[in-house]
């Protein structure tokens, strides 16, 4: 089986029914993705599969054969280890959007997905996007604040880039 993970082609020879979550963590060493409930409920294992958020514990690796996966490690830019954090990652740390951090990577991936299509999300948009991500210690308000701050930063830098081109 072959999966493109964070832009890199990876050959996987595990059992077809092994979950994508466990392949990422155990076979590919990408432990940013967390195993919370293993039943699709908590969202700690959220990744992008062919451009859409999924629970990697609810995907057998054979279902992802030929697909492209983005994990939390792939959200930052500039190679691995990441040199440039994504605006969302910066905002999460600036706004104290996590304490224990176990749900954070799932939140990041869901919000990353949201910002692909919505650069000015409302509180309701954000809560809808993270409806499948449970936080049991910090709560959701600081996540909303961070996502809106990151969106504002992205809008400003996009506008800046446009001005430079003009």
């Amino acid at each position, binding site marked *: 089986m072959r999966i493109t993970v964070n832009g890199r082609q990876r050959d996987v020879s595990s059992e077809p029914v092994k*979950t994508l979550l466990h392949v990422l963590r155990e076979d590919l060493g990408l432990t940013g993705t967390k195993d919370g409930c293993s039943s699709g409920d908590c969202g700690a294992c959220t990744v992008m599969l062919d451009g859409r958020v*999924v629970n990697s514990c609810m995907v057998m690796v054979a279902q992802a054969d030929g697909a492209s996966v983005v994990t939390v490690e792939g959200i930052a830019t500039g190679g691995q280890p990441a040199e440039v954090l994504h605006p969302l990652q910066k905002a999460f740390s600036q706004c104290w959007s996590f304490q224990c951090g176990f749900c954070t990577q799932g939140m990041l991936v869901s919000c990353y997905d949201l910002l692909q299509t919505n650069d000015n999300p409302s509180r309701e948009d954000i809560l809808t996007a993270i*409806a499948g991500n449970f936080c049991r210690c910090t709560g959701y308000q600081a996540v909303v604040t961070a996502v809106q701050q990151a969106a504002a930063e992205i809008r400003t830098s996009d506008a800046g880039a446009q001005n430079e081109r003009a």
Partner: protein
Amino acid sequence: MNHPDYIAAESIQQALHLKQVHGEDAHVVAGGTDLILRMRDEILAPELLIDLRKISLDRISKHEGGMQLGAYVQIAQLLAHPVIKETYPALAEACRQFAGPPIRNRGTLGGNIINASPAADLLPPLMAYDASLVLESISGQREMPLDQFLQGPGQTRLAPNELLTRIMLPQILANSATSFIKLGHRRSMAIAIVNVCTRISLAKDGSVEQARVVLGSVAPTVIRSQESEARLKGQLLSEDLIEDCARLAADDATPISDVRASSEYRKRMVRVLVRRALTANQSELSGGIAGA
């Protein structure tokens, strides 16, 4: 978990052929959101998994005034479809209240039907819209109304050599309103304690021409309340009639007590939710605010 073989079928013929040869030992994989848990919990130990993702069973198209939906249509795809929202709003509403985005991006319509959970969210609206199912095997296909297909929790009339390929939604009468209401412990990521879907279609004289009162999570399968549907037919909607029907629907419910709620609570909630759903239908049909 056991160690099944895994084949991503290249064509519907290949999938049907594998089903013919392996029967109940082969399980179909659509999104896998029910299947993976059942395999992990060792409720299922298939010898072969047949993945349907390469077969184009994910189309949504118009058909004879109604619509035809491929079995592999995902919940998120239904939710985003403007014609579904316009023509079968209760189905769109059930999709909106379904799990959260990651599960909606994987779970399919066909999986929800074949899994045949009494709490499945898409079954009440599909039944209220008189959906029928196209079941295919290598020897041909047959069509069966959804309300005859469900036999019990996880039990359907799908034969071991068959696949569900399409779901047919007929054209709905002009003067209709439907309402889907789900009661869960939270707004998302919740399995229904009770879910109901009602549809009222009025004749020209304003009396009820067709009524569907569908109840979920309160019987071994999603059911239609025969008593309340019969009571509605030919009548003019009124507060008293609605109260009567809500009571009859609660009488038709035979819920169990489980981790989510007690049987008594569920029965009471059927009455409350059916009353609310029919009231929403009434106000939508009389030009008031659209139903839930």
